[in-house]
């Protein structure tokens, strides 16, 4: 089912001549995991702002075209209800921290507190997400005395605690160590398995390749490519579109250039192993 529908959407931020989003059309289906990739300034965050309804409710400016969220035009949505339905993890983890709470625990609980969730339930939920993100030992710490990656985990935890149906997540792993990054993808996978719809902006293409159902490539405010993950990521035109191909896809293209093309361009390690073994078998 189409959960969010964008039809020919063009958007200008206030007082800006060029459009941040140009003629965007796409459908977000319920229960799927979407990856948004592409060059910086390409419009990824603006698309998130739109999907989350911050454009037009928070950012003024000029919006053309049609945005429908769960069957209702975005203009008609109540902003509070929209905030509860769609969780949003902002791009910059340094700004998502409220700065008004004294401990990590209170910081993560703040959203639930604002929703008026009963105390016991709130405490359980905060403990659950802290465990999930491996930040239990930070519970008592001041959010302003955290390392970069610890802050990003806390920002993500605060949104997870809200348990919304749709999650828009803008570069949640930029400050995370490689294992922590994988953990975040695992968590998102779990959320998907529980029926949530995920829209994720990421530069870490090898993980996008492994986990996403669909990929959207943005460049110059436009969607320049979208479709099933394997189809988009194995495309040789990806570099021209300002995106980076997965390491194993680059390797696949390099094998072809070296005169030993694999059967097709792989996007995951497992796939690459299979293709190389197949090639070896054929050579014998």
């Amino acid at each position, binding site marked *: 089912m189409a959960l969010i529908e964008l039809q020919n959407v063009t958007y200008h931020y206030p007082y800006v001549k060029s459009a941040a989003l140009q003629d965007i059309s796409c459908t977000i289906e319920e229960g799927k995991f979407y990856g948004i990739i*592409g*060059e*910086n*300034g390409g419009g990824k965050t603006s698309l998130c702002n739109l999907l989350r309804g911050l454009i037009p409710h928070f950012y003024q400016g000029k919006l053309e075209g049609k945005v429908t969220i769960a069957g209702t035009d975005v203009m008609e949505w109540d902003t509070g209800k929209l905030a509860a339905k769609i969780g949003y993890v902002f*791009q*910059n983890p*340094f700004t998502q921290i409220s700065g008004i709470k004294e401990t990590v625990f209170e910081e993560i609980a703040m959203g639930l507190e604002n929703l008026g969730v009963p105390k016991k339930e709130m405490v359980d939920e905060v403990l659950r997400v802290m465990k999930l993100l491996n930040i239990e030992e930070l519970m008592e710490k001041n959010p302003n*005395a*955290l*390392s*970069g*990656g*610890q802050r990003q*985990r806390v920002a993500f935890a605060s949104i997870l605690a809200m348990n919304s149906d749709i999650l828009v997540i803008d*570069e949640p792993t*930029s*400050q*995370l*160590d*490689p*294992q*922590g*990054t*994988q953990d975040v993808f695992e968590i998102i996978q779990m959320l998907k398995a529980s029926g949530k719809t995920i829209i994720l902006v990421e*530069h870490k293409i*090898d993980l996008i390749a492994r986990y996403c159902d669909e990929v959207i490539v943005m460049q110059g405010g436009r969607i320049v490519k979208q479709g099933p993950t394997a189809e988009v990521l194995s495309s040789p035109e990806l*570099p021209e579109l*300002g*995106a*980076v191909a*997965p*390491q*194993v896809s*680059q*390797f696949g293209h*390099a*094998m072809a250039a*070296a*005169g*030993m093309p694999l059967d097709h361009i792989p996007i995951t*390690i497992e796939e*690459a*192993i299979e293709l*190389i073994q197949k090639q070896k078998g054929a*050579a014998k």
Partner: protein
Amino acid sequence: MSIELKNASFSYPGGFLANENLTLTIAPGERVAIVGQNGAGKTTCVKMMNGLHKPCDGDVLIDGENTRDFTAAHIARTVGYVFQNPDDQIFNQSVRKEIEYMPRYFKLPDEEIRRRVDRAVALTGLEKYMKKNPFDIPYPIRKFVTIAAVLATEPKYVIFDEPTAGQDKWGTEILEHLMDELEKDGIAVVTITHDMEFVARNFKRVVAMAHKNIIADGTAGEIFGNDAVVEESRILKPQLTILAESLGLPGQILTCEDLVTALTGLN
């Protein structure tokens, strides 16, 4: 002549011990990556190298000078540090002002200021942002503003704290080119990063940190070849190293080139 940490430890006010007995030497002109788990103490460690943090135990020497005996401002002329969060560093109203700030503070002649700023801007690709307010430009570009501001001080050693975070293809290429240019000038570059492909492509020496300590210091091949270190520091091997290991290929394979050579060489 080098940056030397000798059994250096650091505790934050309030008593939290973030670095324990670190011993590490960075030679002039060297290029070193620091990797490791979140909260391992990487930022804390490099802040000791430029005097923002003074060790509470042990010593940090910069070309023989103990950081305890000098101000952070003095040390910064030799060891430049680019903050992890650019917003902690930037305070001027325009990109140009931000980059010119230190050279002006040093009271350099106008011509020299212009030369330094031009070079820093060319290396970071900031030409079209010079008139903008740094806080109005996107985070990954803002990071380049802080890099340019430090380069304009022309330090002998520079430290980048997670410059790869959030960078796209363009940004990563700028960084790689910039490090090559600094190397030609004989400037040492210490880079903290979580991007292992970036490490594999650009660094011969890698220092791995975990829980307040340096747990390994060696070549990229040695670090990525050591499963215990990889696990303890919560890093990952480069994708193609994992692929090569699964295929049982011999030798150290870190990059695409290595792997294609290994496979096509078999025929």
